[in-house]
């Protein structure tokens, strides 16, 4: 097993039986579920909206080269510097270079999963800058030295008492465990940072090819402030974030908020096309957009799974996934957890090291049904399994099939084995759940389903 697989199994084993953790995830998501369904119902045609969104994204990605050039042209026309990075290392180097050239020290940052993907904070801190996450959830996990637990709700795994303790030790300011008071502590601390910071870094949820803009979705206003006060603004985004036209946002903004957070639309949806323009009162003097590939083109080259690039990172597939809900976000050990993580991580970080995430699914298909852009998630998980097995067959699977195939192909042998199974099950309770049990992996936490009393053939004969 690869090291990430070992870690996954270890953490999954621990958390799947942690009832407190399960309770926490359940409470956090149950409020969301009610609001999500309420907002979906407000759409005149939710299924129609999904179809339209899927078709729009398909169009965007099928002409990605043209759209990217158009995006860059539009941005550059308004004085934006557009940078292209083939991988995370290049993107970090570009960003560090920009900050160094401005002699900056303090960087404020609003939530960006792409930045997590390329470990931007480590690179910036290594270069000697102070980086402050401004999204409340990200701010909390940064203080604790953790990775975000969920792509939309980073601090979902924490309760107020834990957050109070974190604030008390790290900020020496924690009046109570009241969420409102804790939020105000963060507001006070971060206000100062916005005003002092030299550079602001944001992610982006969409990029509009036609008008040359990036669109940033948030609820707190932290990204607005990050993009308003510092002299230099940098936006990092993956090349797949494209939508063709400005009007497409009229569809995507409410869909993202509905399934992402159970809101009809998020608090702030802001499109940026350049640095401060002549006649505008304020805004950054410089605007840099960093377009990141980082193996997205490898996923693009897999025509069968290309549509995974349609993902708008809403998190809906995580929220409905029985595996995510049981093992939690950190267990995945990578930036994008849940079903979408299981599909794309093997492409972004290597199939053999990360294929276990494609097996972390019951294939129930809840994710596919939840996805606002209709990505066929559970089939892509199967395709990853197929591809990984074809590229590197496992010896025990090969051996198992060597025994299975002849049995399954010979009627007499098959009969013998199924009969044996029924007999075996009668004796099974003697060793069930013990180390002698050949089905121990399963039976240590679950009941085995009973073997049918008769085979279909027997039943059919009797019926006649």
């Amino acid at each position: 097993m690869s090291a990430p697989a070992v870690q996954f199994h270890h953490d999954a084993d621990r958390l799947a039986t942690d009832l407190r953790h399960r309770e926490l995830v359940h409470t956090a998501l149950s409020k969301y579920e009610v609001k999500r369904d309420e907002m979906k119902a407000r759409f005149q045609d939710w299924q129609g909206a999904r179809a339209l969104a899927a078709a729009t994204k398909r169009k965007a990605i099928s002409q990605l080269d043209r759209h990217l050039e158009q995006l860059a042209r539009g941005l550059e026309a308004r004085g934006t510097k557009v940078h292209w990075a083939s991988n995370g290392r290049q993107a970090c180097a570009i960003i560090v270079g920009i900050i160094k050239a401005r002699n900056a020290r303090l960087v404020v940052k609003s939530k960006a999963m792409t930045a997590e993907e390329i470990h931007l904070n480590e690179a910036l801190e290594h270069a000697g800058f102070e980086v402050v996450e401004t999204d409340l959830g990200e701010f909390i996990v940064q203080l604790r030295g953790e990775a975000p637990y969920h792509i939309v709700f980073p601090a979902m795994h924490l309760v107020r008492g834990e957050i109070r303790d974190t604030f008390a030790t790290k900020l020496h300011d924690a009046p109570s465990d009241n969420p409102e008071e804790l939020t105000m502590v963060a507001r006070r601390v971060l206000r100062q940072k916005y005003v002092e910071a030299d550079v602001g870094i944001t992610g982006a949820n969409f990029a509009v090819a036609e008008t040359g803009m990036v669109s940033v979705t948030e609820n707190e206003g932290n990204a607005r402030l990050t993009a308003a006060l510092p002299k230099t603004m940098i936006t990092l985004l993956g090349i797949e974030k494209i939508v063709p036209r400005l009007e497409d946002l009229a569809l995507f903004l409410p869909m993202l908020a509905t399934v992402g957070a159970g809101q009809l639309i998020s608090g702030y949806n802001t499109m940026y096309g350049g640095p401060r323009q002549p006649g505008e009162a304020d805004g950054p003097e410089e605007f840099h957009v960093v377009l990141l590939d980082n193996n997205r083109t490898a996923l693009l080259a897999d025509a069968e799974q290309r549509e995974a690039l349609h993902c708008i990172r809403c998190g809906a597939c995580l929220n409905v996934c029985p595996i995510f809900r049981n093992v939690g976000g950190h267990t995945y050990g990578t930036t994008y957890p849940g079903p979408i993580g299981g599909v794309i991580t093997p492409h972004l970080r290597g199939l053999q090291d990360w294929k276990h995430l494609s097996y972390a699914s019951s294939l129930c298909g809840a994710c596919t049904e939840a996805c606002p852009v209709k990505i066929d998630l559970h089939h892509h998980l199967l395709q990853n399994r197929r591809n990984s097995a074809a590229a590197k067959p496992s010896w025990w699977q090969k051996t198992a099939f060597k025994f299975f195939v002849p049995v399954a192909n010979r009627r007499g042998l098959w009969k013998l084995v199924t009969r044996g199974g029924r007999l075996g099950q009668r004796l099974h309770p003697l060793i069930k759940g013990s180390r002698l049990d050949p089905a121990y992996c399963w039976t240590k936490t679950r009941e085995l389903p009973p073997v049918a009393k008769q085979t279909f053939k027997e039943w059919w004969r009797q019926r006649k």
Partner: protein
Amino acid sequence: MVEATEMKAANHDTNSPAGEQRASERANILARVREALSVAAPADHGEAAAASSIPAVLPAVGATFEDHVALFQKNAVELRAEFKVVNDASDLVAELKRLAAEAGWRQVATHRGELTDAVCPALGLPTVTAKSGADKRELERCDAGITECDALVAQTGSVVVTSRSAGGRALSVLPPHHVVLARREALVAGLPDAFALLRVRYAANYPSMISFITGPSRTGDIERILVLGAHGPKRLTVLLLATPP
């Protein structure tokens, strides 16, 4: 060859090493994209054929001005924003004065604009005007930011501002109370109408920032419990002028 000239056109500094690298990464990425796209993706799940139009799938909006006022009102209540329709400019001044007295404003911030110019001086308060070179610390000390807007969206209860029409980027998000002054024509039915309006108004030259603001600043990052005023304004008041000033 075509590639090379394109690269030059997009990067003015191709003669510096960093510029060269930038140019070549651009070419590399675009080449990988084209190579990947040379194999067509399998047919879609029938979406393209089934697709209707954006307005037909989004939440319903009424037909008349009154419907839109009612819908905006309903959304505002849900979002914990304040919304009021006032008759004329003098009512607008009276409403602002009421807000100022009630919240004890000592200093406000605003920008130059037809509506703001018409009503803000009547407040008789020290006023910071957002313009180039204005001090962000001073803006931060104001009790309220008063701005105009481009549109109000009934469908979602959103306020559309831009860096050109609403005093830049910070004015609508830095002070703790954002007061929006809107003309009757600003109220549109749905999001597609708001984007259409932006296109008509700005297509030749878009402002550097367009923001759809929906309710006061909010977070649910601690146990998914709603808290207002996470970073931006704790209060959002929208005043709609029913008649032209």
